[in-house]
């Protein structure tokens, strides 16, 4: 059973990591707690659901399509809500509040039109049969989630470390004013980061929706709480940290439920969060410079 529990933990950890990647990017680079991120998770899954179910799109086409569409929505929302605040140099709290209002608005709009019933992808959308190796079972969609999480981390790290755009993003994360002085087109890079985050959030929503078959407007809200834990434990804006923290969280939750008590499963993440803040606020792998003077 231990082997199966470890595999379970890795799979759910990969879903947390996949969700947290876009979140940590948005949070770390743009320096706002953007609560609309959870909405992108739901939106992506819902768009892909409609594309596959109502228009018979194959999932391999629906996934990138829905992800890109959601990325564009994220750019529009950033442009409408956050860009004006940045221009006004409004306090951090204003950005948080506006995304809070927008989140309420968007969730309830979605609910008003499509209800809160859970929906699922057509069973034919993905081969969900399981593979069994030595008594340990994994399904194909789960392998896809784990693979995508690792691939996305590699891709993002390559982008951030190996390209001029990545350099610009890092400069923006350090200090928007300095980045502007260095000739970075801050608006463009901000939109790009929003786009990538939205796309990642949507992709996570679609894959997780495929695996758990529980798609509904509020699905993102539940993930947000886990997302907070993962990005703090991993370090704000730390891509590799998000992966490792996600996996740690998934494994610890799985082992807690399997060997301690399932009622404590949800507490693990938040205890870990609080402990991280107590003893290592920069995250497990974070650099110093947490305290901005």
């Amino acid at each position, binding site marked *: *059973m231990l082997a*199966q*529990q470890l595999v*379970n*933990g890795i*799979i*759910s950890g990969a*879903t947390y990591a996949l969700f947290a990647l876009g979140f940590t990017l948005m949070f770390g680079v743009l320096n706002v707690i953007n609560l609309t991120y959870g909405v992108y998770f739901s939106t992506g899954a819902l768009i892909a659901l409609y594309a596959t179910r109502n228009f018979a799109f194959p999932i391999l086409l629906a996934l990138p399509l829905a992800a890109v569409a959601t990325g564009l929505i994220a750019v529009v929302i950033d442009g409408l809500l956050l860009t004006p605040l940045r221009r006004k140099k409004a306090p951090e709290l204003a950005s948080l509040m506006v995304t809070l209002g927008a989140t309420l608005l968007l969730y*309830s709009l979605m*609910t*008003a039109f499509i*209800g*809160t*019933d*859970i*929906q*699922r992808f057509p*069973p034919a959308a993905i081969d*969900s049969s*399981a593979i*069994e190796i030595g008594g340990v*079972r994994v*399904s194909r969609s789960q392998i896809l989630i784990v693979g995508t999480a690792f691939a996305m981390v590699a891709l993002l790290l390559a982008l951030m470390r190996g390209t001029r755009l990545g350099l610009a993003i890092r400069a923006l994360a350090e200090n928007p004013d300095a980045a502007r002085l260095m000739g970075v087109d801050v608006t463009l890079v901000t939109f790009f980061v929003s786009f990538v985050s939205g796309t990642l959030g949507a992709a996570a929503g679609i894959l*997780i929706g495929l695996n*758990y*078959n*529980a798609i*509904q407007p*509020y*699905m993102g809200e*539940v993930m947000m709480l886990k997302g907070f834990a993962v990005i703090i434990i991993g370090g704000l804006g730390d891509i590799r940290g998000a992966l490792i923290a996600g996996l740690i969280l998934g494994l610890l*939750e*799985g*082992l*807690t*439920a*399997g*060997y301690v*008590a*399932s*009622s404590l*499963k*949800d507490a693990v993440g938040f205890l870990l969060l609080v402990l991280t803040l107590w003893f290592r606020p920069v995250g497990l792998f974070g650099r110093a410079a947490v305290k901005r003077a």
Partner: protein
Amino acid sequence: MLKKLTALAALPLAASLWSAAALAQSKEPVTIGAIEILTGPNNKYGIAIKNGFDLALESVNKNGGVLGGRPLAITYEDSAGNKDQAINAARQLIGRSKVPLILGPTLSNEMFAAGPVANERKIPIVGTSTTANGITAIGPYVFRTSLPEADVVPVTLKTAQQKLGIKKVAVMYGNDDAFTKSAYDVMKAALEKLGIETLTTETFGGKDTDFSAQLTKIKGLNPDAIVVSALVEAGSGILLGKKALGFPEKVRVIGGNGLNAPKVMEIAGDAANGTLVGSPWFIGKADPASQKFVEAYKAKYNMDPDQFAAQAYDTLFIVAAAINAAGAAEPEKIKDALGKVKYTGVMGPFSFTENRDPAETSGVVVIEMRDGGFKQFN
């Protein structure tokens, strides 16, 4: 002077208006209140219930309404699943709309909050979907037409024990929701009473989607069945997770009322096969009244009714009967009449116990999910 003249001129007109009003008064609708979740994440329950009420209301009014020709009407108040708003709704229905009776609220949680308000003002309040323990203990004006889990669950478990020879089970329940927690309490008691061994008790959150850790542990213990107290979302997830982990076919899930919804099969697909639930009603019930209800519901709303809609549908007829028996739209009389109503609806014969719970459990059917539909099991 001019004023006086117009006033005089208006007199005959006013008189005629007054008599018209008097005439209309006998046809004035009898308005009762209903508190349901119409918005927010749990509105599917409230909407199914509202649909059930509205369908029954149509039928009541087509057949001459209540109290000798007065139409029956319902004023809905939205609780949004929030107990504070449920209290506000109850107070406004009583204090402002002056309704003689309240239907709802949707959740047991909300009833615990709104029930005492109605009871204090001596207004009967009738839950149609509140199955938790202790609802009617709130006070003498609190009724419910939904069979409490304490009546349904033992029937289900006993049937499974007799027909499948179940000896040891694993239990899973949603521990963050009053409904699933209270159903679990009932399950625990029933399992003990029936002498079925509980190998482990696992919990989960109502919004969880991943149950693999709990199910992996359960699989290692080789239970004969898994007894689950969950709502549709988590329940479907458990069924899917169980299938993904390759449980043997013969290990069935035995659920509480929360799993009793066609939606479970829609979401879980063939993973739902074999799931047993006890129900006061189910869509495949052969009874002609029930079949007529299903057809009418489908025609009006273009979807399948669930038990919440069915319970609401019956409840409205029961309430209408009580109002007629009371002879007036007065709370105290309606309350007394409610206790004496005998009615046979889509759920079977119905009357209240002394404690204002449903008296009849003979309508309970144990049903099995199979290939996307419910089949009678017992």
